[in-house]
């Protein structure tokens, strides 16, 4: 497809979450502190990497492409607040954006500059921290 953003020469893609606290899951929505997001391999459930969640709830990850992934949110005490049951993935060079974590599907994003994009994405599953291109 001529207009596709997919670039198969790149083994990774990106995930941007605008605000993890925007959620239908009570333990996440009511959490005082969401400190960290963990990325697991969707099949083996092994930990691929972790990243801090910004003060505004945003996080920006570079993740392996075409690989099933599961995300978990962790609070400041290291307690798991919630985790995905269904796998997500990104295509090579694709950036997927989410309004929140398991948020209402009828909610458009708020127009707010997410803190996480003020720096380079956190590389998950190996590789450098550079944006890649």
């Amino acid at each position, binding site marked *: 497809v*001529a*207009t596709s953003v997919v670039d198969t020469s790149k083994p990774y893609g*990106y995930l*941007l979450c605008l605000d993890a606290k925007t959620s239908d899951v009570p333990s996440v929505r009511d959490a005082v502190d969401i400190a960290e997001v963990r990325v697991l391999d969707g099949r083996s459930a092994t930990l691929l990497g972790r990243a801090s969640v910004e003060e505004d709830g945003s996080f920006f990850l570079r993740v392996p492409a075409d690989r099933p992934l599961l995300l978990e949110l962790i609070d400041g005490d290291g307690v798991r607040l919630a985790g995905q049951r269904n796998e997500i993935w990104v295509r090579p060079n694709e950036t*997927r*954006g989410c309004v929140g974590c398991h948020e209402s599907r*009828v*909610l*458009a994003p708020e*127009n707010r500059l997410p803190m996480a994009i003020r720096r380079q994405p956190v590389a998950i599953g190996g590789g450098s921290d550079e944006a890649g291109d």
Partner: protein
Amino acid sequence: MAAATAPILILVLYFVSHRHASYYMGDVATTVNCVTCHVDAEGGGLIDRIAPPRYASPRKPAIAPDGSTLYVVAEESGSLMVVDLAGKRVTGIVELQDRPHDVVLDRAGGKAFVSNSWSDTVSVVDLSTLQVIRSLPTGNIPSGLALDPAEERLYVANWQSHSISVLDLATGAELRRLAGGSNPNLMAATPDGRRILVTSELSNLAAVGTVPVSEVTLIDTESQQVVRRFGFDNSHLLEDIVVLPEGDLAVFALVRPKNLLPILHVLRGWVMTNGLGIIDLTTGEHAQLLLDEPDRYFADPYGVAATPDGRYLFVSHGGVDQVSVVEVADLREAFRRATQPGGEDFPNRLDLSAEYVVKRIPTGSNPQGMVVSPDGAFLYVTERLDDSILAVHVGTLEPAFRIHLTDVARETPVRRGEKLFNSASRTFQEQFSCRSCHPRNHVDRLQYDFESDGPGRNILDNRTLLGIRNTAPFKWNGRNTSLFMQCGIRFARILTRVEPFPPNELAALVAFIRSLEVPPNPHRLPEGRLTPSQERGKHFFERSATRDGEPIPASNRCITCHPPPLFTTRKSFDVGSASPTDGITEFDTPHLLNIYNSAPYLHDGKARTLEEIWTVYNADDTHGVTRDMSQKDLNDLIEYLKTL
């Protein structure tokens, strides 16, 4: 002899016609030929076939108090068209000035007042004789109009002057000029006439990365003063406004842009959403509610009209050729919840429209202004790019009949391109059109984060489309060598997220963009004369030495990179304007045509005024030499720049 010259004549004719076609259609081979634009399938005389068709492009209607006649502002033909609703035909045309925009009638229906947006005047029309009886000067680009209760004063929204004129209709004098919001747009009066509300089409100029806020200005007609300014966060394109018959709620069309987010995709209102702004005039509470649905968008809401019984509110969507029908009682309930605790996320809720939108009515191309008949029986919708009026039967909410304002059957590529430009049909889920970012074919004064360079990188200010036909390359990095490239595959990949325009549509779109002219510049004196200040400014623009006699290198003189007639070399330079998030330091040199109305400035819009280009962002004299200039010198330079 004749036989010898014939081939030469044919060759000359070929090259002249090729050049003429290229002027409009661009420099890429297309299937355009003379017939494409100049033959009317519906017949007409030879001159009619050769001359460009004269479209009407109806923008706004008003209806006579007895409901018998519609008065329609025809933007493109520069006229007021008189439509007999019983006979369903045009019975009179009043020639006006350039780009008429809005029309209001006095209560008796004896006079019409029409703003001529590109002539900076209001025409007063005697409706009994269909003659223009007066022409009143206004501010720059007059748009919306409203009368005070005594019909002694006319309020005029001066779009480009960011002001509201109060005109004395007895003398024609401007009594006051009130500060408006950013680009005051359209107006509505309360039923008692004591208050007038004015929408602002664009958001207030603000620092890059901050929330756009647009204003609705509330005017007291007794004191002729602004009594309140309502700020609507994360909104712009505030268009038509109506006060409901009960007099308690004002409702207007708006768009909620997501310009602070990187454009990763379009899904779920990621780029923009479309809806209504509501103000409770009794409490001052206000809110925003969407007209979109979770997987379906209704781009470019523009016109609003309410039935006399207050039951229905109609909203036209210029981008999707539909009118939304809103059950006002349900809208009131949603508004009540939106202003209470728990309603914080209502401005972003895509599911709420199901509670108050009861029907979507298909229309012709680009529906704009609307009016409901005094008896509440019919809604009349201007179908701007079809030159027609759609009548909708309010009782059944079904289209009843259509009135054609012109007999032009031919659709030129420019006209076809204008339809495409104003249509969201080539955007994922029809979320936005080209016009959504380029209202009035100009700018929305916002900055955008195109994700192709990585989120948060290379923030870019929107650029005008007016007068750009010969200013290639395009894009701030100067990489798009033609409008075909600018609007082609890349555009679909990074923005609309659907298949790109097919070649014939792309050619039409480019033809339309290349046809766009800049509006008349009010800063220019007749015959190219300059005021003393402008003359001094011209000297600074062209100077080759500082005030101390130090030579200024040719590479750092204004006129070197901004030479007439377009005031651009069309090359990229590093003038020290790059921000830390930019991936490049050289940017395309912008043209300076009508630069006075293109704020903000620089590639990322960080300079909110022309002054700031040099007072804030030229500390090291890398963007021309200005450190030796006094404030007065700089003012003179800017006065000259405003004339370009």
